[in-house]
């Protein structure tokens, strides 16, 4: 990835530190203090040995010991504060990032949502944020600490003896060159391995999900033999990748040991030759103690480097969400009243690809629907039935032409107002965890229980809700998994009815409801909400043949628009579908 883009990305993320700037700055400062004490303490240790023990100066030992205790306490305080601030900064940053993304997603239009997969969004909000949180905490605590510790230790070593300390300089250069080389190579291998590893896990998942197929075709042995090869491959790849980095620690040890030996030799020579004037035994001890400080810091820096570069991928994915521009916006002077539920499509074109590439899915659609009419919509998959109706409540914006509701272009309405007036029951619908009443009240937050029951009655949901143990207080599990498909659809219809909309759109919303109940729901619509314009998409001719008029869509174009009888006479597609499904119902699904 180009450096500039990484910089841009980090800048964008950094904007979410917000109120956690203070702890974010305080953490490295505390860490620097901690390092300072960490470096000073070995000096005192040396002093204890040299000036105290060697010279038989017991008061000096007491004095220096006391000073060391004081420094240790200071070190403890700065360490504690550093830890506390780091946690605050990192978790706060994570919180802001999550909120930033979640808020942004709430402004997304349908086409923005289509851009991401559900699982992708969830991963970004969870795993990716956690990765960033960990990396950020690590950075705050170590990014300054490690280099500072190294520099300080180096400086301290140089003040003791510049000549001997040159050994460290050489060691640091050599070790860092080596580490960079190994990391580069190692990371390359590991990315490859993890890709294969993910593939293998995907295969396992496929098997878990498709176990019935595997067993039905007696393919257990076949799958096992395939898995054996896969395991063997993963084994080889992992071994290969890990062999690349296994040398890290021994090389580090080698460097440390080499430094110790060299410094011992040079130090001993210096002490002896100068008669203890240039260097004392205590100094030599300190010098050797810094060895660990310097080289461990270097190892630490290489670890930070790895961790940060691994979190870059997460940062990138988070930025994708933050960068996504919602493409449906509130008009400048939003209209908040609607004359009636009439709908007009004028030369409407629509294309899912925002750059206009590929074929439009709606081509020059012209329709005029009177307020209160019941309209059926029929057509094969890919004939863009769902797309057509989603333009009415401005879930998508037209690419060309205009859609008017109540005589006003949908783009001029206040978006929330429009969506309250045009109520859509989506094809892929979802119930949320909570009671049945909670779910119904999505349509109208302040609805009374009676209003909810009325809506449920109209959608023929009342009959099964009443049979449930806690009736309207029955808890719905996440995704509505504890109600059947047909029950779910009826609850969704009731929820949409609670809005008392001017336009009601059912997008294949009774596919799992049996024909009789389906008819009952339509009858209720006719009787209870005659003034509401109703658009009903269905694969089932019986669901729409009693509509006032029927739209036949084919490949994004209106192929026919008229009553059942008219279309039977004039429209081939309609007649064909009708004949395939003749004789009442075409389905035997789900009764009751």
């Amino acid at each position, binding site marked *: 990835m180009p450096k500039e883009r990484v910089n841009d990305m980090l800048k964008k993320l950094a904007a979410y530190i917000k109120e956690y700037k203070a702890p974010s700055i305080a953490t490295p400062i505390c860490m620097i203090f*901690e390092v300072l004490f*960490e470096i000073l303490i070995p000096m005192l240790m040396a002093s204890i040995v040299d000036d105290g*023990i060697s010279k*038989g100066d017991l008061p000096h*030992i007491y004095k220096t010991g006391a000073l060391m205790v004081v420094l240790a306490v200071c070190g403890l305080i*700065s360490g*504690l504060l550093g*830890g*506390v601030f*780091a*946690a*605050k900064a990192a978790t*706060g940053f994570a*919180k802001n990032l999550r909120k930033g993304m*979640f808020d942004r*997603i709430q402004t997304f*239009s349908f086409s923005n949502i289509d851009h991401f997969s*559900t*699982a*992708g969004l969830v991963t970004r909000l*969870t*795993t990716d944020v956690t990765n960033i949180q960990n990396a950020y905490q690590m950075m705050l605590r170590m990014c300054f600490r490690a280099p500072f510790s190294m520099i300080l230790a180096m400086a301290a070593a140089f003040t003791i003896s510049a000549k001997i300390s040159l050994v460290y300089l050489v060691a640091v250069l050599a070790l860092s060159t080596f580490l960079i080389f190994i990391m580069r190579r190692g990371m390359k291998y590991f990315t490859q391995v993890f890709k294969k590893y*993910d593939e293998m896990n*995907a295969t396992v998942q496929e*098997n878990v999900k*498709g176990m*019935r*197929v*595997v067993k039905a075709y007696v393919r257990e*042995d*076949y799958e096992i033999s395939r*898995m054996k090869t896969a395991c063997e491959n*993963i*084994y080889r790849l*992992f071994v290969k990748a890990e062999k690349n980095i296994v040398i890290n620690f*021994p090389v580090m*040890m080698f460097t440390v040991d080499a430094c110790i030996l060299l410094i011992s*030799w040079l130090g001993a020579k210096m002490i*002896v030759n100068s*008669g203890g004037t240039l260097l004392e035994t205590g100094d030599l001890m300190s010098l050797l103690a810094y060895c660990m400080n310097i080289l461990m810091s270097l190892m630490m820096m290489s670890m930070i480097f790895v961790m940060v570069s691994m979190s870059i991928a997460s940062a990138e994915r988070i930025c994708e969400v933050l960068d996504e521009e919602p493409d449906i916006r509130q008009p400048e002077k939003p209209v908040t009243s609607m004359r009636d539920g009439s709908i007009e499509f004028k030369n409407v074109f629509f294309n899912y690809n925002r750059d206009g590439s590929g074929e439009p899915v709606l081509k020059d659609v012209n329709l005029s629907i009177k307020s209160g009419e019941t309209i059926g919509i029929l057509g*094969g*998959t890919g004939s863009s039935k769902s797309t057509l109706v989603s333009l009415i409540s401005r879930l998508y914006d037209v690419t060309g032409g205009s859609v008017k509701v109540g005589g006003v272009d949908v783009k001029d309405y206040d978006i929330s107002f429009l969506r309250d007036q045009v*109520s859509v029951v989506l094809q*892929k619908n979802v119930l949320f965890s909570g009671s049945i009443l909670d779910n119904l009240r999505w*349509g109208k937050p302040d609805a009374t229980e009676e209003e909810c029951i009325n809506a449920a009655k109209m959608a023929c949901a009342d009959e099964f809700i009443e049979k449930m143990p806690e009736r309207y207080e029955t808890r719905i599990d*996440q995704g509505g998994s504890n109600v059947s498909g047909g029950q779910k659809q009826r609850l969704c219809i009731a929820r949409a009815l609670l809005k008392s909309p001017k336009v009601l759109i059912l997008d294949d919303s009774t596919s799992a409801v*049996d024909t*009789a109940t*389906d008819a*009952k729901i339509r*009858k209720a619509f006719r009787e209870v909400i005659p003034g509401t314009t109703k658009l009903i998409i269905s*694969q089932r001719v*019986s669901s729409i043949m009693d509509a006032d008029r029927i739209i036949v869509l084919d490949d994004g174009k209106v192929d026919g628009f008229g009553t059942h009888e008219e279309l039977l006479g004039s429209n081939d597609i309609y007649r064909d579908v009708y004949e395939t499904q003749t004789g*009442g*119902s075409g*389905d*035997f*699904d*789900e*009764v009751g």
Partner: protein
Amino acid sequence: MADENVKEVKMGRGRNMGPMPKLENPGKILGRVLSYVFKDYLPAVILVLVCIVISVLATIRGTMFLRTLINDYIQPMLTDTLEGKTADYSPLIKELLIMAGIYLVGILANFLQGFIMIYVTQGTLRNLRYELFSKMQRLPVKYFDTHAHGDIMSIYTNDIDTLRQMISQTMPQFFNSGITIVSVLISMIIISPALTGVTLVMVGIMLFATGKAAGGSGRFFVKQQKELGELNGFIEEMMEGQKVVKVFNHEEANISRFDELNERLCDSSCKANQYVNILGPINAQLGNLSYVVCAVVGGILALVVDPANALAINIGDLASFLTFNKSFNMPINQISQQFTSIVMALAGADRIFKLLDEEPETDEGYVCLVNAVEENGVLKESAERTGLWAWKHYHKADDTTTYVKLEGKVVFDGVDFGYTDEKQVLYDIQLFAKPGQKIAFVGSTGAGKTTITNLINRFYDIQDGKIRYDDININKIKKDDLRHSLGMVLQETQLFTGTVRDNIRYGRLDATDEEVEAAAKLANADSFIKHLPKGYDTELTGGGASLSQGQRQLLSIARAAIADPPVLILDEATSSIDTRTEKLVQEGMDALMNGRTTFVIAHRLSTVRNSNCIMVLEQGRIVERGTHDELLQQKGRYYQLYTGNTSEVMTA
């Protein structure tokens, strides 16, 4: 899209989800993990242990070196120099060379340890993965009904991963720390038992402080995990329903609920992290304190106490003791900090072993399916594929073998069934299908249609009654052979990663390319396959996510067609397929059904109408049976379903 799917795999039960697990018998699990590793890698593990001992000893010898350097070399040489004699460096050079040798041995041992451990760890994991997968393939379908797929996946990902860490890092480090502690302790005692006592007291204080902080962090970690779970649950639910949120203008309400959960998580996770963060500084400074105390006490012992006293020590000894003091704290911290990760890993290992211990699907069947030739009206076994199949039935009683022609006659006699013993799903099912007949099941969801079909191929075993296949009790037929003779097309089509061709060939692995294409033609899948970018060699990923549901269904029909089974079990697609594709699917299915005994879970009228017998199921019982016309005349449940008429409502 495929990438996203892979990510999803990893989620499942997150690694740190949930509180610290309570283990039934950690010692036993640990023993089992160890014996699993030893099983294949005992010599390697022994070598690793030897390497660890060598490298620890080398490190300790290195620590002792400081003492020798100052006491035995520098001080005497310094005295020599101060007295005007020339210092003799040759003993020092010799000592340095010896040290270099020792260090090198240590490094080599360390490298060898790391190198061997790669093979031990990865090899063990490979064996485990393979055994897990093989075991999983042998488990009954019931297992997959009763275990969440995410949890099964989590065993392959998270649990294996924590186990990897334990085998490759934690266990060697534990061993290393243990040996270090023991040897450093011995060295310290040799130098000065008194100072060792002081050090041990300080270690006690350190462990106490660590325990306190760890307890606090544990409490908040549990809270953090709970709140993380809640927030993740909310996020998952809302991302799944984001479009519904838009349609109902529910954004604001969502944000305020999210803020609440987010704030709570931030709070507890901040506290949990704080406790973890302060562990390091506390230990480090207590270590420094321990150093000071030892220095002061040591100073007194070196200077004040009479050198003749047993407690007295010299300066060089004190210097090395202080170094040991430092190197003593580190392994103790390591062990105390790694304790949690070991418990986590053992919990994972426990789940792995549970799966491995699961009871596999049993098969007591002995009647098997063989190729046959008919000579003079008598069936004989044939080594070649003849297209004619027979059941080879060995009768133990009189030691004879009979051959029964595979025709596809299926009889249910008083079959009762329940997925669990508490809840019965099917009651007294009677059913008779002659070879080549088509039997349709209709009824509402949960009436037991799918269950019946799952009994024929013995995905589940019945509680009572008998199922006979060509007049043989299916319990006597080998499961593999039974399933070979049955073709299955499920509504929710499962495709596998691989080419279109591979997916069709799944039905019969030795099918030629021509046979694959012929099957695709029969299933009406040929035309759409040819329009795919690479035709039959198009790679499918993510369960065929790039295909429409209808196309996936066509492929699964082709897959059944190539297996060419005498009996078919079909689950028709519901109305979410558009009419044109549905027509193709229907024609494909009709072609497939031709001449085969077929059990079909019917949703479409045309299928039902030309069935030989229709079974109307309600709450696990067959309430009506007969042909379409017969049932219509009865004016019962079927009539209601068919006409859409109920007593209260007339359709328009």
